[in-house]
């Protein structure tokens, strides 16, 4: 009887020890993993954001357990101080941030949104890069043009962003956007 108890105890101790060693190794490997993504930046301008870009950012965030940081970039005219209140821009940004948060929330992705001011969209993005940390940037190339990022802006972003940059090629069928009702 005593033998049985001793054998059972040794078995439990062995299994438990093995489990603990395996778990600590697995944890160590995870924490050492250089590609762990915590924050994904999705900058956008104007009155709409590409659904394709948003869905891609959300897919990545969900797969990687990351937080999505949608950032509305506002260009402040030179006649105004850079840090002034911009209620008109905010009126455009708010419904879009709300819609993004709704979609993210439905997919279980956390959101930490920003509205960043600059003299131009690039300047706003530059300011954002200065004081926020993120591991990946998702930029829709479809917004390139008068109201979005130009090709130069994207090249600049690739050079400057201290993170992976994912530029989404526009699809010919991609007309879906999240738009501000005030647009």
């Amino acid at each position: 009887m005593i033998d049985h108890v001793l054998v059972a105890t040794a078995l439990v101790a062995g299994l438990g020890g093995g489990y603990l060693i395996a778990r600590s190794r697995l944890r160590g490997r995870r924490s050492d993993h250089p590609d762990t993504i915590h924050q994904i930046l999705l900058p956008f301008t104007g009155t709409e954001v590409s659904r394709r870009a948003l869905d891609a950012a959300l897919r990545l965030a969900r797969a990687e357990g990351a937080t999505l940081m949608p950032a509305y970039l506002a260009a402040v005219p030179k006649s105004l101080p850079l840090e002034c209140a911009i209620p008109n821009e905010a009126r455009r940004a708010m419904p879009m941030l709300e819609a993004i948060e709704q979609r993210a929330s439905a997919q279980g992705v956390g959101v930490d949104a920003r509205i960043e001011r600059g003299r131009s969209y690039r300047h706003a993005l530059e300011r954002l890069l200065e004081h926020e940390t993120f591991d990946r940037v998702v930029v829709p190339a479809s917004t390139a043009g008068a109201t979005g990022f130009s090709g130069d802006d994207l090249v600049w972003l690739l050079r400057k962003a201290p993170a992976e940059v994912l530029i989404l090629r526009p699809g010919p069928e991609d007309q879906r956007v999240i738009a501000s009702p005030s647009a």
Partner: protein
Amino acid sequence: MSSGRYKIFLGMAAGVGKTYRMLQEGHAEAEAGRDVVIGYLEPHKREETSAQARGLEVVPRRRVAVRDVTVEEMDLPALLARSPDLALIDELAHTNPPGLTHKKRYEDIADVLESGIDVFSTVNVQHLESLNDQVAELTGVRVRETVPDSVLGSADEVVLIDLTPETLIARLRAGKVYPGENVQAALDNFFRIENLAALREVSLRQVAEDVESKRLFSQDEALGTRQEERVAADAPKAVGERLLALVRPQPSSQRLVRRAWRSAQRLGTDLDLLWVKPPGKPIEGEQERQVTALRQLASVLGATLLIEEHDDLVAAVARVVRERGSTYIMVGEADPPRGLARLREPLPQRLMRATPPGVDVRIVAHRGRKEGER
């Protein structure tokens, strides 16, 4: 001695006829037998305005040397010594040069009122402090001379001098606002239909809010119960309502801020964000990042972020509500209570008991948890 009555003629822009109307009413008062003088008039070389001023006594201006030039300003001591029944004082937002009694003309006016003299004065809407950013964004032009909103709130009467944008532009083209050589530049910059339409809307709303706040205030006085008198006396003389949103430095507060801002926009009110921080703990790391984000968001929205260090959330909120004259509190949905906390009265009820009667409390649902609970 009781203080004088204060009447302000408010306009959406230069040239709508504020000064002209002030002079007209000054004449009417003089004809009714009152002793009326012009304390300060800025006719801007407008013939109609100068003509309207004829027949009214003018208190001579005071000459002040500023660096190498001499400027003429209102002579406050002379006006007080003259002691008329009514003084007409143009452009209350004006900044005085160094060496005079006060920095701003509205402060001179406060002295005049205090000595029992009635005052008529004028101001454009973009000079009001709380509207300065909004007007600057709408028009692209920022004025440096601002006046606190309380100046308008303290007036016994605010008269809006309204003009359609089309009529004002027609007046400008006819050379009735600026001399001929400046007309085209004005039309190309500030005096555009869309600017004037936006300014007109802001002015109309401002006066509507002022009328409403005075109506509510006089109702409180008329009701006259002790409690209502206390509330009326405690409330700062703010223009309109004021929203207070209770936030924490975490991303989920952003939804609450968006909701609060949208409500503030609909009501046309000011928004304050309040974080009651537990005492003693330094703000660092992720919390610091989130506080910076909240501060940025408040700045973008034209809201004010207040950080109060206090170990009693309800007491801190009640104090801020009284100090800021908040009429509406928005709170996020609380985490489900655990243990003994289940026996405690919920936060909204505690807030309603601690704040003055009539302050509404609204709970904003936590979307993330709702989704997760399904």
